[in-house]
C-alpha cells in the first residue's frame, strides 16, 4: 500500500491532494521552485524539496529532478495534479521504469487520448458519437472539400495535437476552405510542432458538458454524471456546475454509458473526464478526454459524495472500485467559480503581487480550495488561479443565490481578482435562467461590464476612511506608511539611481 506520495505540483491542487493524503494517513512530499519557498504547499507538506529555479521548465516540468526527489525521499507514488506533467506520457513511463506508482492512467491511455485524430478513431470504434468530420489528417485539399460538402458548412478545422483554441479555424464558406486549412496547419506547426489538422462539423449554440469517470485495474468503470462547463472565456472555463441545467435523465444515462465506453476503449484506470460538445437539442459528440483530475472536480465530489483523489489513490493501490454505478446518484446542485489574480475591469490583465488581506467565506454549503494567505506574494511565473469557490444547495436557484452572497463575503486586497466579474456572471439573466452556451460571455459583454454608477455616499466614505487612516498614522508618528507591493517610492529611487549612473 502507498505510504508516501510526492505531489508534483503547486498551488491549490497540491494542497487539495495533500489533504486527502493526510486523511488516509499517507505522508505527503512537496516539491517547490525557488520562487515557491513561501508557498502554502511547502508549509502544508510533511516534507519539501527544492527542484530548481522559478520558471516551470526549470523546475516543475523537469522529470529528472522530480524523480530524483521521489527516490531520495522513498516516495511510493507521484500525484501529478493537473497541468505540468499530469498528461505527460513520458513522465508516466519514467515513473513505471523507476518503480514509482504514477497516480493516473497508463502512458498508452495518455498517448491515445492526447492525439485528437487517434482518439477520434478509437471513439468511432467504441461506438461513441464523434462530431461528423475526418478521421485522418488532411493531406489533399480537394478531398477535404469533398468531405466538407458531405458534412455541410460551417465546419471547424482543428489541430490534431491541439488544445486551448490554438490551431483552430471556423469556415463558413467554400472560398474559405483552402486558406483556412493552410492557416490552421501553420499555426498548429508553430504551436505544437505538428501540422496535422482535421475537419469537424461546426456546432451551433454549443454546450460543453463533460462526464467524470472512475476506472480501476480490474475492469470496473463507472461515471459520476456530468459537469456543465459552458461558461468560458477564450476557451478557458470560468464557471462550472452540476447537474447541467439542460440535461435530461434519459440523455444523462446514454451519455454516461458512452463515457464509460470511451474510457474502456483505452483500458483506462484512474479518474478521467470525457468532454462532449452538445447542441441545444442534446445531440452530443465526443470532444476529447482529459486523462487527469480536472480543476472542476469538486462540484462532482459534492453532488455525488465521492472524494475523487481518494479514489485515485485507491485505484493506484490496485483496489477494486468501492462504488457500483447503481450506488451513485446526484444530490442537490453545486457550482464552482475560478478566482484568478487578474483585473476584470482592465481586459483581464494578470495581477500578481502581494496579498495584503484576505477574508475567506465560511458557513454552510461552501467549499473553498485555495492556497494564498495574507502577506503572500503571488508569483508571476505560474497560473494566475488563486482559488476555487464551490457552493452547494438543494436546488440550482439556491446554489446560485449562495454563490452570490459568498462572492460578496470573499475579500482580497492588494491584488485585483476576477471576483467582481464572477458576481456579474451570477447575476446575468441567461446564467440565472440556465439558458447559456459557450458563447455566453461574448454574447453578454454588456451585462458583464462593471457598473460604475456609485452613490456619492460610498465615494465619500472611501475618501473619509483614507483620511482618517492617514491622520491616525500621522498621530502615531508613523509618517511613512509601508507601501503595497514593489513600492513606487523605492522604484522612483531606483530610477533616480539609474538615471544618475547613466549621466556619468
Amino acid at each position, binding site marked *: 500500500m502507498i505510504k508516501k506520495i510526492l505531489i508534483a505540483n503547486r498551488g491549490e491542487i497540491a494542497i487539495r491532494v495533500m489533504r486527502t493524503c493526510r486523511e488516509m494517513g499517507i505522508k505527503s512530499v512537496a516539491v517547490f521552485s525557488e520562487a515557491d519557498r513561501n508557498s502554502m504547499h511547502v508549509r502544508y507538506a510533511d516534507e519539501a524539496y527544492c527542484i530548481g529555479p522559478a520558471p516551470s521548465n526549470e523546475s516543475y516540468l523537469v522529470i529528472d529532478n522530480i524523480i530524483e526527489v521521489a527516490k531520495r525521499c522513498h516516495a511510493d507514488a507521484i500525484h501529478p495534479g493537473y497541468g505540468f506533467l499530469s498528461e505527460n506520457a513520458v513522465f508516466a513511463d519514467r515513473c513505471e521504469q523507476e518503480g514509482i506508482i504514477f497516480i493516473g492512467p497508463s502512458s498508452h491511455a495518455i498517448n491515445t487520448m492526447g492525439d485528437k485524430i487517434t482518439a477520434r478513431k478509437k471513439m468511432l470504434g467504441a461506438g461513441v458519437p464523434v462530431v461528423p468530420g475526418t478521421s485522418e489528417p488532411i493531406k489533399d485539399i480537394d478531398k477535404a472539400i469533398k468531405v466538407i460538402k458531405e458534412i455541410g458548412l460551417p465546419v471547424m478545422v482543428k489541430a490534431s495535437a491541439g488544445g486551448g483554441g490554438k490551431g483552430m479555424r471556423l469556415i463558413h464558406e467554400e472560398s474559405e476552405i483552402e486558406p483556412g486549412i493552410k492557416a490552421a496547419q501553420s499555426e498548429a506547426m508553430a504551436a505544437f510542432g505538428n501540422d496535422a489538422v482535421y475537419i469537424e462539423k461546426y456546432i451551433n449554440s454549443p454546450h460543453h458538458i463533460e462526464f467524470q469517470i472512475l476506472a480501476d485495474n480490474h475492469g470496473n468503470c463507472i461515471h459520476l454524471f456530468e459537469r456543465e462547463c459552458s461558461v468560458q472565456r477564450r476557451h478557458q472555463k470560468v464557471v462550472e456546475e452540476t447537474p447541467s441545467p439542460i440535461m435530461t435523465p434519459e440523455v444523462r444515462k446514454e451519455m454516461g454509458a458512452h463515457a464509460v465506453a470511451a474510457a474502456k476503449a483505452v483500458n483506462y484506470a484512474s479518474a478521467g473526464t470525457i468532454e462532449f460538445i452538445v447542441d441545444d437539442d442534446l445531440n452530443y459528440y465526443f470532444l476529447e478526454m482529459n486523462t487527469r483530475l480536472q480543476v472542476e472536480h469538486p462540484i462532482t465530489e459534492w453532488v455525488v459524495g465521492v472524494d475523487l483523489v481518494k479514489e485515485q489513490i485507491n485505484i493506484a493501490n490496485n483496489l477494486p472500485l468501492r462504488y457500483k454505478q447503481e450506488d451513485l446518484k446526484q444530490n442537490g446542485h453545486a457550482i464552482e467559480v475560478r478566482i484568478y489574480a487578474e483585473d476584470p475591469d482592465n481586459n483581464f490583465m494578470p495581477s500578481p503581487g502581494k496579498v495584503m488581506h484576505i477574508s475567506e467565506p465560511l458557513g454552510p454549503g461552501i467549499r473553498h480550495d485555495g492556497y494564498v494567505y495574507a502577506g503572500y506574494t503571488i508569483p*508571476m511565473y505560474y497560473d494566475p488561479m488563486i482559488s476555487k469557490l464551490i457552493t452547494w444547495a438543494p436546488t440550482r436557484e439556491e446554489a446560485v443565490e449562495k454563490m452570490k452572497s459568498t462572492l460578496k463575503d470573499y475579500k482580497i486586497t492588494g491584488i485585483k481578482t476576477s471576483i467582481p466579474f464572477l458576481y456579474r456572471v451570477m447575476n446575468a439573466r441567461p446564467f440565472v435562467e440556465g439558458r447559456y452556451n459557450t458563447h455566453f460571455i461574448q454574447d453578454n459583454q454588456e451585462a458583464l461590464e*462593471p457598473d460604475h454608477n456609485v452613490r456619492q455616499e460610498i*465615494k465619500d466614505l472611501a*475618501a*473619509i476612511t483614507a483620511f*482618517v487612516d492617514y491622520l491616525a498614522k500621522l498621530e502615531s508618528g508613523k509618517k511613512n506608511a509601508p507601501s503595497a507591493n514593489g*513600492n513606487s517610492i523605492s522604484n522612483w529611487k531606483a*530610477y533616480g539611481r*539609474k538615471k544618475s549612473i547613466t549621466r556619468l
Partner: protein
Amino acid sequence: MSYEIRLNDNQESIEILNRDGNLLEIAIGDRKYKLDITEVEKGVYSILNDNVSHNVELVPVENKKYEVKIGYESFTVDIIDAEARYMMGRKSDEDDDQSFISTPMPGKVVRILVEEGQEVKAGETIIVVSAMKMESEYKAANDKTVKQILVKEGDNIDGNQPLVILE
C-alpha cells in the same frame, strides 16, 4: 492644517468637525456625515452611517495615497496637504515633456521593440511584458521620442517600475 482630498479625479475639501472616540463628524465638500468609524483589522475599517454597516479596506500605495475598496468598487484616494500642493505645482512643470512606460504588475520583459533615440507614434508598441503565462503589450500614449531604456529583455520587473522613458 487645511486638507483636500482627491478621489479618482475629483478633488474637494475635507474637514473634521468633531471627534469623540469612534464617533466622527466630518465635512467633505458641502456634505456632512456623522459616523461611527473604527479600524477592526489592520487597514480594514467598519463604519456605521445612520446605522448602516459599511466595510472599507485600505491598501496604502504610498504616503498620502491609498487604494480604497468598498464592496466591489475601488477608488484611488490622495490626501492633499500644503506640502502635497506645493509638490504638485512643481511636478506638473517637470512632467510636461517627459513620461515613462510602466506596468501595473510585476513580470518579465519579453521584448523591447524600440531603441534609444527612436521616434514613436501614439499607439505604437514599446515593450512586451509577460506575467502568469500571458503577454501584454505596452504602447506609447502620444507621439514621443525614446529617451532611455531602463531594462533589457529577460529582466524581472516590479509593478509601477519605470521601464522606458519617453519625452
